[in-house]
């Protein structure tokens, strides 16, 4: 991993959610996906702070869609993962996998 291309735990989770849901997904959907898979509550503010940070780093791109009535006439903000984001995810995944090697059994046995 190059210096500076670090992913925090939560950044990693958010990027994975954007990747899974596909390009064009939006904030509410990302939040629901993360909550259902990780089974931990997530506030809207915390999510968008992370998304802003990921966009600043160039890992994702966002744009505004059309307003909808169910959102009180407010637009959705759509997200898609960018190639740099994919590369950073892969590097992060490889680093984690390397650290996990040989330890799964220990963790599942509750040692």
């Amino acid at each position, binding site marked *: 991993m190059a210096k500076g291309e670090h992913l925090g735990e939560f950044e990693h989770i958010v990027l994975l959610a954007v990747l899974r849901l596909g390009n064009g997904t939006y*904030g509410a959907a990302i939040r629901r996906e993360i909550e259902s898979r990780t089974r931990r509550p997530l506030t*809207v503010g915390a999510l968008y702070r992370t998304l802003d940070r990921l966009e600043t780093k160039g890992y994702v791109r966002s744009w505004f869609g059309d307003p909808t009535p*169910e*959102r009180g006439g*407010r637009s959705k903000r759509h997200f898609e993962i960018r190639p740099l984001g994919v590369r950073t995810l892969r590097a992060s995944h490889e680093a984690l996998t390397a650290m996990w090697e040989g330890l799964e059994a220990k963790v599942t046995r509750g040692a």
Partner: protein
Amino acid sequence: MRVLVRAAAPVTSEEELGDIAEEYARGATPVWVCRQLLSAVGRGSPRRMSRRSGAMVFAQTFADLRLALRTLRRHPGFALAAIAPIALGVGLNTAGFSMFDAIALQPVASPGADQLVTVYQNFQGVKKRRVHGARRMFSFPEYRTLRDGTRSLTGLAAFTRHWTVTLGGDAPREVNGALVSCNYFDVLRIVPALGAGFTSATCDAADAPPAVVLSHSLWTAAFASDRAIVGQTISLNGRAVTVTGVAPEGFGGIDIAQVSFFVPLSMQAVLRPEDRFYLDPDTSWLTLVGRRNAGRTMAQVRAELGLVAGEIDRQQPGRTTTLIVEPARSLSMPEMRRGIFQLAAVISAAFGLVLLIACANVANLLLARGAARQKEIAVRLSLGVPRGRLIRQLMTESLLIASTGTIAGSLLARWSFQGLLALLVSLAPNQVPALRLDAGVNLHVIAFAIAITGVTSLAFGLVPALQASRLDIQTLLNRDTAGAGRRSAGWLRGSLIGVQAAVCTVLMISAALLLRAAYVTETLDPGFDYRDVAVVSFDTRGLGFAPPQAATFRRMLVDRLRGLPGVESIAEAGKTPLSAGDMQTSVRRADGEAWQEIDFNIVSPEYFAVVRVPIVRGRTFTASENAGPTRTVIVTEATARRFWPGEDPIGRTLRMALGPDRDTPLEVVGVASDAQVARIADTTTPCMYLPADAESADGRHLLVRSSADRAALARSVRAIARDLAPGLVVSVAPLEQNLDLWRGLSRVIAGVSGSLSLVALLMAAVGIYGVVAFVVSRRLREMGIRMILGAALGDVRRLVLRQTLRPVVIGLIVGIAAAAAASRVLESVLFGISPLDPISFAAAPLLLLAIAIAAGLTPTRRLRSIEPSAALRRD
């Protein structure tokens, strides 16, 4: 919910609000929505928020608050150390303010109380004036002139202070009531719970039958809430009086001393026939209360009443009257308000000092924390965060600490106030009437709490915030954090310690003085023998006895009491030694010009033998002392020294004032030993004794010296009195109770002061300990270097201690000087000791110094365990 979302719009982003709205439409709970809004505030679009700078500030403040909350949650020890002293200091001050507010600032218990005013007067050029209450009060003719002449008041009523009368019946008792004008209830808009109250038929007419309106509490306690009470007659001071109404529950008059019944002013002569002043134009006895006309200001009312008062002056040539018109309060008398304000100032100063110590402690804590965060703050400043923004963030933390401390302290105050009030009531003498004290949470108290929050957060937060936010490139570049921070921070810490030491010294010296005074009152010899003496008190006016009847009753009672087993001697006295209240008059030497105030008592010849105050020169009174043209007097040694220094006073004459143009000669026949009969520890105030007039009907006390069991004696006395005068209320109490009153007062004052100074000492000790511990931890590297270079551990410890205790010593010296000035204020309660008592002034500072040294030595013990080489490597 939509309103909430719309309100949050300026300070949140569109996409967040949209997500929240979408989830709400899908069934999210309002609680969930609120949580999401809180998390999203502050992340608003910078472009949108810059157009509304108020929204930006709000968002930033909210973010600061969240950060401060998170910081305090993460450091619970620091939070407790900061909030606890503030809570204590604020709690004390809020409790004190609540009490003061209840006594002096609350409006009276009456509908539309903000329109009510009380009226008093100052007048000059009046030759003679009788006073029942206070000189500032009005006579009935004066009241009538004002009442009929005013247009700026819709009504002007008059009332007296409480009068004690005997309520007859199966169980006679003494009750306190007020004489009021016929329009009293109308002006106050008080509607009786039963009956019509006072009407023209029952009040205004000259031949109106005696009428009474009972208070709700008396109606419940003495008449079992009998709904048929209206129209029945009851006995007041032996007179039949018709009940015309019952006041509503909770109303006992507008004065702070509540009363049990109300009778018309015209009944003054009925209740006290020997003292007729109802229509007397030269007797001060009435307080006035009026209701302002809507649309008239206080200034207009004062101006108009002043004009009407001119009419009174025209009726008495040479007289000039100025009126005192103020919004009606429970405590309305100007002298009493002045006294209360003075007392409140002293108490506020003491409580404020404790709060000051608390603020100094917390300021030191914040300074230490600021020093620990130097690098973080320096980096933030260098990244472009404005200094003002940083200061605001640090002040938000201070405000949060202060607010939490205020809320906790106010709750503490609320609980402790009730306990304090109960304590004071339990110590008050029985003669003190029920007081109306409502110290609930009201606008005044809330405003006070908000103000104190702001002041305390500024007091302890501003300087550390300014200090911490100052950019120091040296610190940013230099890895060496030795020196415990910048020199200015060290100076600040020292100053705070010095302030704490000074304030603590003042409180401790004051407490020491009061404790020593309490000890003196517990152990002194009052100069008379109070053991085995019972005080029998009664007022024959309660049964309507005329003077001859009263004299006969007294003689028969004394004769019967003399026959009881164990009774050695009996005396009569107008005032018992050390009882509450003063009897004073003016005297001068027969050949002298200047009149002087003097305490006096009216006693029978046996008095001196009963209380064992020796006659050191001359003789006591004889049985027929008042028969001759010149009255006789026995003076105390102090009086003799005052009027005839170095001479024999026997046979000399004093003149006693009987009125502005009259006086009477008094021949000195004896000199009594100095004794503390008027006030405790006071034997120097001039005092004299006059012989009792056997034919007087005035309330009298009997002093009975008896070796019999107290309870048995009391039973016998009451039985004899009941036999001679059924229905007379008689109280029997040991003379020692008079001494207990003074002791109780002294104990309470000393106890409160001692507790206060203990709290202050504890906080100061904790503060000193904290500062020394902090300095030691920051200077470990320096200590290591010194020890490597050969310094002994003891030398290093002494160095730290010396530098830390220098401001303590300075504070002690300043505190001693301040205490010397402040102790004058306490002079009136320092019974028997000097305000500059050397023992108190030496012991308190020494104790503080010892505790400061101990508090400072404890953290330096840590130096024993450090490895000098390890300390060198510390960053």
